[in-house]
């Protein structure tokens, strides 16, 4: 099962920055973590193309890098979509059924949490309390807030962004 995501479109400028970061850390022990953190800052995520550059430059097998990236929640293999959907799984929202809404979104968008649709349109993530417990269950699409939701509302919300 290969990982599908939007085509990579890194710029020469980004690559230059990454090479500078690697050069700075190259001979230091435990350099992989800071390099990955800064690479994610430069590109916003860590796709295969970025991990391959790091692997080649640092002489670290790809699998080792991938293992670290998938271990830590701070790293992402996927970019943020044009519309980033964030579902609150905080206590109040969760008891009001936000888990089902999160599941429904995964089903409709055909992606898992933390992933981005292949067309780059939607990305999906879970978040903790956003301070709108009165409206539970809540989700946000970029800056727009939707509250008092049921599973049936999911399709209508997505339709607004099609």
């Amino acid at each position, binding site marked *: *099962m290969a990982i599908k995501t939007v085509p990579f479109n890194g710029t020469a400028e980004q690559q230059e920055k990454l090479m500078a970061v690697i050069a700075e850390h190259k001979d230091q022990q435990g350099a992989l973590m800071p390099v990955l953190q800064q690479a994610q800052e430069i590109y916003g995520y860590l796709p295969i193309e970025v991990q391959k550059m790091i692997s080649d430059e640092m002489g670290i097998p790809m*699998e080792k890098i*991938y*293992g670290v990236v*998938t*271990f830590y929640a701070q790293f992402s293999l996927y970019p943020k979509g044009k519309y980033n959907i964030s579902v609150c799984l905080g206590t109040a929202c969760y008891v009001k059924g936000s888990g089902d809404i999160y599941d429904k979104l995964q089903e409709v968008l055909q992606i898992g949490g933390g992933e981005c649709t292949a067309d780059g349109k939607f990305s999906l993530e879970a978040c903790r309390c956003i301070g709108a417990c009165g409206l539970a269950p809540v989700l946000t699409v970029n800056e727009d807030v939707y509250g008092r939701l049921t599973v049936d509302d999911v399709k209508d919300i997505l339709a607004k962004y099609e």
Partner: protein
Amino acid sequence: MADINVKINGVAVSVPKGTTVLEAAHMAGIDIPTFCYMKEINEIGACRICMVEINEGRGFRMVAACVYPLAFDNTEIRTNSPKVMESRKKTLELILSTHDKKCLSCVRSGNCELQSLCNEMGIENESAYEGEKPAYEIDNSAVHMYRDNNKCILCRRCVAVCSKWQGVGVIGANERGFKTFIGSAFEMGLGETSCVSCGQCIAVCPVGALSEKDFTNQVFAAIADESKHVIVQTAPAVRAGLGEEFGYPIGTNVEGKMVAALRRLGFEKVFDTDWGADLTIMEEATEFVDRFQNGGTLPLITSCSPGWVKYCEHYFPDMTENLSSCKSPHQMQGAVIKTYYAEKMGIDPKDIVVVSIMPCTAKKYESQRDDESAAGVPDVDYVLTTRELARMIRRAGLKFTALPDEDFDNPLGVSSGAGDIFGATGGVMEAALRTAYCWLSGNNEEVVEFHEVRGTDGIKRSTVNINGTEIKVAVASGLANAGELLRRVQSGEEKVDFIEIMGCPGGCVNGGGQPQQPASVRNFEDLRELRAKALYSEDAGKALRLSHLNPDVQKLYEEYMEKPGSHKAHEILHTTYVKRTIN
């Protein structure tokens, strides 16, 4: 370091300070089970099956025996108290809660470390904890093996050998916690990565998660097909390992019984790949002398080990010109069977099935490479590991220990002692040097032994002086060692004329297709050394110890190929390489 006195299960033992609890217990004749632990390369204390009670003066507590060093006099250790047993059982039950327990159809049933420990510990309910179970697709993308993560217990022994022994590192732990699984970067199948097919991961796997692609059924079917002429050949290291499958001590040479078993399985001819090894020496020594005297690309590097060849293609593509163009011994022998032997016997090569029994999984991949088909059909049709041969013997109901000792068939069964030692690291180099020495010194029959290239060191070096000509040679086994040596050669730090490289640590005797020994043996015995001894003593006991004096090899050149390195020899016995990338 100074010795300290400790008590294990009430028995006093004196051990050097810093000895781990596991090692101290072993010295005292007590087994502590381990899954993840591999001496020096995987001391991670992760699986928790080796937990024991220890009292260093402040009461008993639980520690992981494999990584806990003993530091104080009068330390007390309990390895089989009720608390320890309960912990061990619970750990097993938790492992079983996500384990695919299809033992009846599992290739490792009978020599599975998890199965035997469950049995020893008296596990009554294999489903003590029922809950969510991850389901993984079986990865069959590689030519030589399967990965079934449903049986994986996450011990990471495969990960350790791949990165630390082999310097390849294409497998590792992905994700975390309950979702952790062993795989490759970006969920690539193993076949898409720069895996070199060495199979060391299979050899160290405690369970049935990793196994070679089994061709025993196809071989049984070929034998039963009367239109086929089915010929088998066996590599030197197989005779030094096969006995372990039938209860013989490690390092027992079972050549005679192995030949008898193969004949009883129904193979029409039982040939010895040692003969192919002698032939390889003729071609490779000729190639070396030619390059050495005529300014060819040096160092020349041996090409008998397909795992090494694939590693070179992926990781040192600039050095593929240094590889000897010689096919590996069993491919040479397969090529000779389907050309010279077929013509001599009047058989159409299409009706010949050549089966190679090898200590190796990379040979499964090698036999499917391009340019390994001298007669227009593959030189070798099936490659079986030593383990697969043992399965065939058991399935056919042969009582191995009761078999008589028999000899290989002729003409491709006679071999020199030089061919025998191909199975151990340094053996190919020594065989080549013996012949090169004779050729360059003019004394055609003098046997000179080269002890500096023997032994289990990862990298060995020697300078050989033949009639005033100095030849610098080096031998490496295990691909991490090979990589280290080649980086030094590439940078110019080291100047060498001739290099032998074997993909597996210790050479073929410790190949990825050899019998699997459990951690309780592997961590305390040197399989490489014990198995190699069987080959060196076979060599020492032979009258014929020089490849170039092998009468059947000489006859092949006289009747068919003219001389080593001839045009015809190149067509049949040599191959080509490709440059690959790292994935």
